[in-house]
């Protein structure tokens, strides 16, 4: 095998198994399949051109997700500049909901909520919270890989994940109450 073939083979082995993950994360970033497809294709080409910079033995998916994220920011966020949430990680969230108070302590109401409504809840999160929740709770990545993919410290991953979960749980809980899936807890 010549060098080019070896290069392509190692890329295919490490990266192609990540395509489903990459596509789902792209969908959560862009919100629509057509844009997600463009984003995945751009990301894959960039990754292939930069393949020499990947360090064997490190996480290929974290490396790939970092490229996806940068590509997304460059492609789509340039147009609609969102205000920079400088102290996002200092914002105190006060979800009303505490699971231990609920009439459904083990969260069986989650089973009644349709997928689209769960996605909708995810979309209401600030992008910085949403991406952590997607990588951790949807895709099951460990902290270290999330930190690498997003370029933030592990402590920040943890605090964002904690807040994302509380916000998401409060959102779904309120929906479940509105739909009559559970009784609102009595005010003690």
């Amino acid at each position, binding site marked *: 095998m010549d060098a080019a073939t070896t290069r392509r083979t190692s890329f295919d082995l490490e990266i192609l198994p990540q395509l489903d993950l990459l596509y789902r994360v792209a969908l959560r970033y862009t919100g629509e399949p057509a844009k997600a497809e463009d984003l*995945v*294709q751009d990301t894959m*080409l960039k990754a292939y051109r930069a393949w020499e910079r990947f360090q064997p033995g490190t996480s290929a998916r974290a490396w790939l997700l970092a490229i996806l994220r940068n590509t997304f920011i460059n492609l789509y966020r340039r147009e609609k500049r969102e205000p920079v949430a400088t102290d996002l990680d200092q914002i105190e969230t006060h979800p009303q909901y505490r699971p231990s108070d609920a009439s459904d302590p083990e*969260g069986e109401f989650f*089973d009644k909520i349709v997928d689209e409504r*769960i996605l909708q809840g995810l979309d209401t999160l600030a992008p910085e919270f949403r991406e952590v929740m997607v990588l951790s709770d949807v895709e099951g990545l460990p902290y270290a890989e999330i930190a690498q993919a997003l370029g933030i410290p592990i402590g920040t991953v943890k605090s964002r994940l904690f807040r994302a979960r509380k916000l*998401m749980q409060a959102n779904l809980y309120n929906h479940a109450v509105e739909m009559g899936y559970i009784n609102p807890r009595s005010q003690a």
Partner: protein
Amino acid sequence: MTAQVDCERALALLVDFLKHELPADVATAVEQHLEACRPCEQHARFEAKFVLVISQRLREESCPARLRAQILNALNHEDLSG
């Protein structure tokens, strides 16, 4: 040798515990607390349920075959031109 875990500590460690990111001895201490403390155990079950629902329900899409083929084509093209 790990100190016992109280409710406050157990809840603080819960996210790491459920992600299997605690050292074995700390995880065991959390587990022992959860076995002995019903409110904390319920809380843990709620969190675990939430993550299970999120991971099962939002991970159904996969990369469309057409896109996969397009990408492979593009990579082949890179190989030829590069």
